[in-house]
């Protein structure tokens, strides 16, 4: 197959899997944050802090794959 076509296909697959994993991770983090703050409302400030930190770290993984997708398209 044409390498250009394979590069476009590869970038689509890369961001597809990354979005899947990222969605699972973010859903997990926020779900656990909601559940734990519903069980113990006094823990809400701590949980909120950790929730934002966890969200940014999971989002970073998805965006690494996005960078790879852009590199594949640009080449």
């Amino acid at each position, binding site marked *: 197959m044409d390498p250009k076509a394979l590069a476009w296909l590869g970038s689509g697959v890369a961001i597809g899997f990354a979005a899947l994993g990222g969605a699972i991770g973010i859903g997990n983090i926020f779900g656990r944050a909601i559940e734990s703050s519903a069980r113990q409302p006094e823990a809400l400030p701590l949980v909120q*802090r950790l929730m934002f930190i966890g969200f*940014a770290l999971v989002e*970073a993984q998805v965006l690494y794959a996005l*960078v790879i997708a852009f590199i594949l398209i640009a080449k």
Partner: protein
Amino acid sequence: MAEVFKVTDLVVMLWVAAGLTFVVMFVGARLIAASSEVNGRFANLVDAMIDFVRGGIVEEFLGENAPQWFGLVAGIFFFVLFCNVLGKLPIPFFISPTGNWNVTGALAITVFVIAQVVGVYKLGPIGYFKKKFLLPAPLWVQIPAIPIMFLILLAEPFSLAVRLFANMLAGHMVMFTFATAQMVGGLWLLHHQNVLVKPAAVVPFAVSVVLLGLEFFIAFIQAFIFALLSALYLSESLEEHH
């Protein structure tokens, strides 16, 4: 020499961000120092943000070393915050300086080098090596793990730089795609020949507005995360091996 030190719009935005950080902090500090009882809204805003950085980031991770390193971490936080937010304002010339991997790479490498130099200075070369390269594991696990720990050490500034760069870039690219895509983009729908199609251009532009709000939120979060991880990596270099 001229082609290396060209003053691009990115450089001008960096100057604007640095100047804005300095002016905001200077004016805020002067207003807070002026009266001890009642400050204005702007001074209270600056005070609240500085208190947030001090309590939430520096005291949390650095503990007893906090007063020394507060300046660096707060400077990183406010500079990255102003850089991120400047690019999100809908003014034609403004771009995010942190949307370029050279800028975020320079910031991440600066933090990394500072952390390593301080680590070697404070822990001594042997203590630094033991802290960074050796796992709390038996010897037959530690020796093969040394290259892996070295890779982890190198991954820290890389991830810091790419996280900030990719977040800023992704926001711009998504809004750009919503405006200019071929069949669903706002501008394509707006300039379509069929007049009945033209009102449908409201939808992509409305989505762009919502995304702009999300991007402001992401700008704050990413500045916070950058400063937090910088403080975390600094604290790893300052503590003794336990």
